[in-house]
């Protein structure tokens, strides 16, 4: 009757499926991040602070904030993603996990995709969730806030994916933070333009489906191409050290 009992522990030689490996990388990154909660909170605080600077530095008038609120939120989100990118590979690089990752039989670009997904869940997604509150603070109306969150939801994964290339290229370099920004900001420009442009179009009552579809196209392009570039960059950086 007990013929169906399976061994509890799989033999060590059994190879893990690609999807399982991706899931393992993803859940490991999330777990590690939750053990250092302050690191999770910092980009969010930065996001709020940068948004606060604009009414203080430029003008607290409702008309100004209404007009430029979406742009301010987008720029702040972009900067805080940029700031968090340094963490994407840094710790794994320092303790050697990254080398083990490269040695895995699974394709490296898929593992990087999983890592980037974890990065987005830990930084991009909280920004999207926080955006409505800040949207109210800069006097955006309800519809604009909804569109803004939609564009952030589609746009922040692109930021994480493209940023992963920069993070991989600057891994292990001195003053990597500034260099990373120099490399990546020009590549972020299209996402920023379409992110804010969509909200501006919605505010004028124009249909936004086309713009949203274009942002979706950016996302697809980034999902399919960026992990390859990041994997190539990672191999170069690790052969370097």
């Amino acid at each position, binding site marked *: 009757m007990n013929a169906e009992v399976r061994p509890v522990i799989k033999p060590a030689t059994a190879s893990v499926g690609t999807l399982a490996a991706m899931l393992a990388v993803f859940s490991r990154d999330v777990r590690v991040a939750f053990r250092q909660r302050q690191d999770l909170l910092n980009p969010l605080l930065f996001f709020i602070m940068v948004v606060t600077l604009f009414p203080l530095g430029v003008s607290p008038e409702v008309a100004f904030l209404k007009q430029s609120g979406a742009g301010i939120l987008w720029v702040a989100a972009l900067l805080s993603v940029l700031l968090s990118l340094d963490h994407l590979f840094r710790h794994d690089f320092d303790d050697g996990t990254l080398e083990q990752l490269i040695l895995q039989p699974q394709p490296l670009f898929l593992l990087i995709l999983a890592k980037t997904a974890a990065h987005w869940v830990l930084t991009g997604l909280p920004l999207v969730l926080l955006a409505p509150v800040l949207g109210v603070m800069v006097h955006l109306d309800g519809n604009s806030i909804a569109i803004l969150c939609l564009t952030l939801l589609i746009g922040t994964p692109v930021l994480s994916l*493209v940023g992963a*290339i920069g993070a991989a*290229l*600057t891994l292990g*370099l*001195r*003053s990597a933070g500034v*260099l990373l920004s*120099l*490399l990546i*900001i*020009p*590549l972020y*420009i*299209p996402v920023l*333009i*379409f992110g804010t*442009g969509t909200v*501006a*179009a919605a505010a004028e009552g124009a249909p936004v489906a086309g713009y949203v579809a274009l942002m979706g196209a*950016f996302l697809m*392009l980034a999902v399919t*191409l960026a992990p390859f*570039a990041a994997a*190539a*960059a990672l191999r*170069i*950086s690790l*052969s*370097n050290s």
Partner: protein
Amino acid sequence: MWQFFHKLGSPKWFFGIATRFMPWLLAAGLLLLAAGIVWGLGFAPKDYLQGNSYRIIFIHVPTAFIAQSIYIMMASAAVVTLVWRMKLADVFVKAIAPVGLVLTFLSLFTGAVWGKPTWGTWWVWDARLTSMLILLFLYGGAIALDRAIADEKSAARAVAVLLLVGVVNIPIIQYSVEWWNTLHQPSTFKLTEKPSMPAEMWVPLLLSVLGLYLLFGWLACLRMKTEILIREQKTRWVKELVLAGRG
């Protein structure tokens, strides 16, 4: 054909060829550029709308044109670096990146100088100006990355990856900047639209573009030779060359 390809990978071979071609490049480049600029600045007819101020076109357009094509050349060399690991491709990218940066800056600068009398302002957030500015950032990023990595081979390959990512992005950036421009800026300023340039204008323009191309070729050879000497300083042929030069 493959033999040529393999030869191209040899820095020594290139050094010899470049030394032979450089005087010709320099002479032809200077001649064409001088002809184009003298003709353009001195003898081409006035523009009926802009008067004499349009004449900066004979400097502005060549710099902008070549600044853009240098990025494409660098990206093509980047493919060679990544696929065939050819030493000379690395040298090429490293040598011409600063040239591209300077030419991009010059085209922005001459554009600003041209903009003042034509549009009444030094800078307009126009689609073309903005995308040139972004090109300047891309050059700056590539150079900064190259300088930051100590190991030559890794630096060349990292820059190659960055250049390829950049070249995929350039059309997207160009398109989105144009779209942004039409969205945010109703046509307050427009380039005065000329009804097809007469030959007396475009021939000198073509001459100066070709001349600057040849001069760029000369400068690229010069910079590549210097870079080769630095990289190959421990080889025998460089030592012999330097000793012969001294003796």
